[in-house]
């Protein structure tokens, strides 16, 4: 009997007990005033701020750690806990934390979703909008940590060299983070090896000197009979070399830049090719690909399949002379070669007007490396909407963005400061981006419009770079495919606009609701952004779309003007004015 009793009721009792326990946990979390889900965020010791990032390198962790300790010394009662997540896992970890409401107070972010998540751009913008505090009002306020400096009283966004552009979403017209550092690229070269192999003691100042040095280097054999490699390269490093060649295509850009904004979109290139204003065999485009082939030839064999570390080790082991280096790794790579060889820092080797091969296309000089529209800043942090202490979280960010704090943060981590007036050391000063120069040219991204064209372009471009197919074969095959299949990609791009209009309409409804409930200056700001979004996403886009479709149907037109040509009407007006001036003289 006892056995029957136990057999029937004990399992039920265990089940009921487990249920009541879990219900109690859920009930307790849902009850107002219960312990916040951010465990430990409010303790008897005061406020705890949690900060997460993906910078595993020692310098970055040290910098955040030291800045946190300094901030804590200034603000007793606040403790900051740092959590570094490997970037391969960061995306999935972050999205899980956000959707479950357990995100840390401060989160490292970028404008695009972490690569590991494969989240489309517009979906990621929705994440930023939904899960992070909008920083727009704070961007217009002075940073209190700039008191006593020349930045005192200046709105936060004007105290940063990029105008805080990196942290601005053009999708929903809000700031969502504060960037703290600036990045650029230079070329390190092994001075000893360079002098020995290239026979020069000064770095190359232009492409001609660089190419000559590379030819000399690659003709020499080491003690094992292997050729020296001029450029330590990899599939990660190769894109850094591309602006060297892209800048040659300026003349081609003038034939395709239909909206005259000096930035070429893939649709514009397609229209230019389709209406035969431009071909892939334009001399400047041929020059661009020839230079990229040279860069590939100066690199180690198989570099297109290698990762970053492979190139770095080749350089550190003194098997290669040149290595493209970003500011994020400038100090660490310098440290790796300390005591082994002396290294120099040089700019990317651009062709100049006297170059025998490329001079014709290099009349405009070096490209601008950073501008209001193309920012090289990063190391951004946003504040999660679920943070129990957003004011304190913001204050810590402002501390690191203040002139003194930003200089200190970047001094420790070895990166370029972003705040105006914050100084950097001798090594990093050589990485300061060039802020004057010509706008870029046709970047590699512009040659493909969608899935079909991108796959083909990548395949053929890779074969061309490693010399398996000639330039003629590459462009011949790609041109044909681009005109046939590219039409499909082009129409897909236009048709995708319809879905985008629906998403934008939702965003407008959300912005309108915010504007209608805001007060005073905040309301004016919300309405201003609402009207901007309405204009840029809805009002004129349809007319532009219609014009594009018309050009599509028209195809080539006799005596058609290029986008940057003077119209006959304009020249006639100038002629009339000058004729009148001459008559008056």
């Amino acid at each position: 009997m006892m056995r029957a009793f136990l057999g029937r009721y004990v399992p039920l009792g265990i089940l009921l007990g487990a249920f009541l326990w879990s219900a109690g946990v859920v009930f307790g979390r849902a009850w107002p005033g219960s312990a916040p889900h951010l465990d430990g965020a409010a303790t008897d010791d005061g406020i705890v701020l949690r900060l997460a990032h993906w910078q595993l390198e020692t310098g970055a962790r040290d910098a955040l750690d030291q800045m946190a300790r300094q901030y804590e010394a200034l603000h007793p009662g606040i403790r900051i806990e740092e959590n570094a997540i490997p970037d391969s896992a960061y995306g999935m970890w972050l999205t899980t934390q956000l959707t479950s409401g357990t995100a840390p107070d401060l989160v490292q972010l970028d404008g695009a979703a972490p690569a590991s998540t494969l989240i489309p751009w517009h979906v990621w913008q929705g994440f930023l909008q939904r899960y992070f505090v909008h920083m727009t009002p704070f961007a217009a306020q002075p940073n209190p940590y700039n008191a006593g400096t020349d930045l005192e009283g200046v709105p936060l966004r004007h105290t940063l060299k990029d105008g805080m552009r990196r942290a601005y979403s053009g999708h929903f017209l809000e700031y969502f983070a504060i960037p703290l550092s600036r990045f650029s690229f230079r070329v390190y070269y092994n001075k000893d090896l360079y002098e020995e192999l290239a026979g020069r003691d000064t770095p190359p100042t232009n492409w001609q000197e660089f190419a000559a040095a590379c030819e000399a280097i690659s003709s020499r054999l080491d003690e094992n009979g292997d050729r020296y490699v001029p450029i330590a390269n990899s599939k990660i490093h190769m894109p850094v070399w591309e602006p060297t060649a892209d800048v040659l295509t300026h003349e081609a850009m003038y034939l395709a830049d239909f909206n005259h904004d000096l930035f070429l979109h893939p649709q514009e290139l397609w229209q230019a090719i389709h209406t035969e204003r431009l071909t892939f065999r334009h001399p400047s485009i041929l020059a661009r690909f020839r230079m990229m082939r040279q860069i590939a030839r100066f690199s180690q064999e198989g570099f297109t399949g290698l990762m970053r570390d492979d190139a770095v080790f080749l350089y550190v082991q003194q098997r290669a002379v040149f290595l493209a280096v970003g500011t994020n790794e400038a100090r660490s790579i310098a440290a790796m070669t300390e005591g082994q060889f002396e290294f120099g820092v040089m700019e990317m080797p651009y062709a100049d007007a006297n170059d025998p091969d490329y001079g014709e296309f290099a009349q405009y000089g070096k490209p601008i490396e950073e501008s209001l529209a193309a920012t090289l800043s990063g190391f951004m942090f946003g504040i999660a909407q679920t943070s129990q202490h957003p004011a304190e979280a913001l204050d810590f960010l402002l501390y690191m963005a203040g002139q003194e704090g930003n200089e200190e943060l970047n001094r420790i981590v070895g990166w370029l400061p972003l705040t105006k007036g914050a100084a950097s050391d001798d090594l990093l000063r050589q990485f300061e981006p060039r802020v004057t120069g010509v706008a870029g040219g046709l970047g590699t991204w512009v040659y493909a419009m969608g899935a079909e064209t991108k796959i083909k372009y990548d395949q053929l471009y890779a074969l061309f770079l490693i010399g398996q197919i000639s330039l003629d074969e590459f462009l011949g095959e790609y041109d044909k495919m681009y005109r046939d299949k590219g039409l499909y990609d082009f129409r897909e791009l236009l048709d995708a606009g319809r879905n985008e209009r629906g998403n934008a309409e939702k965003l407008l409804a959300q912005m309108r609701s915010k504007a209608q409930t805001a007060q005073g200056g905040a309301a004016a700001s919300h309405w201003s952004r609402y009207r901007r979004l309405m204009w840029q996403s809805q009002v004129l886009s349809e007319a532009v779309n219609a014009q594009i479709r018309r050009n599509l149907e028209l195809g080539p037109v006799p005596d058609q003007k290029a986008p940057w040509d003077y119209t006959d009407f304009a020249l006639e007006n100038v002629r009339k004015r000058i004729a009148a001036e001459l008559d008056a003289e």
Partner: protein
Amino acid sequence: MVGAVLVVVAGACGPGVTSLSATQEIAEGWARFRVDDFDKAAGHFERAALHPEGTEVQRAEALYGQASVFNHRRPGADLERAGEVYEEVAERYPETESAAWSLLALARLEHLAQWGLEGDIPAVQAAYQRVIDRFPHHPAGEEAFLYQQSNILVTLDAEVIERAALATKEFIRTHTESPYRCLAHHVLSACYAEMGEQTARLEAKEKALNTTVDDGVTPVEIEMLINTWLVAFDAQKEVGDFDMARKYYRQLIEQWPGSALVFASKRALEDMDAVEERIRNELTAQGAGL
């Protein structure tokens, strides 16, 4: 046992079951709507619509909120139901803010269904006209006007677009305090572009630039930079008004020295000098030849 479970489950639903005022329900509804939490938003709007102490205005807003959820939730949008509720708001509460925005939303539904296609333009035009007629000086009505003209631009028919240009000029003349004037100048510029009226287009573009509002919060630097550049470019290349072009190129160089457009502006200034010299030489040679 079952009763205990029910009590626990009901308790675990937490504070959402507390009673809020209609105003609070509506505010919560929009807060949930803004973060794509459409289920909760719908619940708040529903409670607001049925709230015993809700006013007419609040009921209108609650219904408008419900319609917005039907319209914009993804996945699971129900555009037909959205249209029905928007119509209900416009008919039952015709003098409210929500009626204005509901009529605009109805017109937008009509328009977006045909976006990018050669659809039923008269139907879209009529939908917007309904808003304009009922609320001519309300933001919803002013927006409806701008959308209506952009829809006309799609036709690429210069004669039809000329009527849009006249209507837009009239809008600018009669809506002197409207915050949409800047956008109206942009629309006018687009109309003139299609009509081939380059001088008028440039004038409208310049007015759009000079009526851009800087509220001190929204970063307008990039927009101002690009629009200054485009006015200068069009003045130089489209119209041949070198005085205006020089004015705006120089303004750009001075105001945005870190811009990638500075280089192009400097080249443009040199180019205009070169063009003038070439033409002057040609005309002088012609005059000497006579």
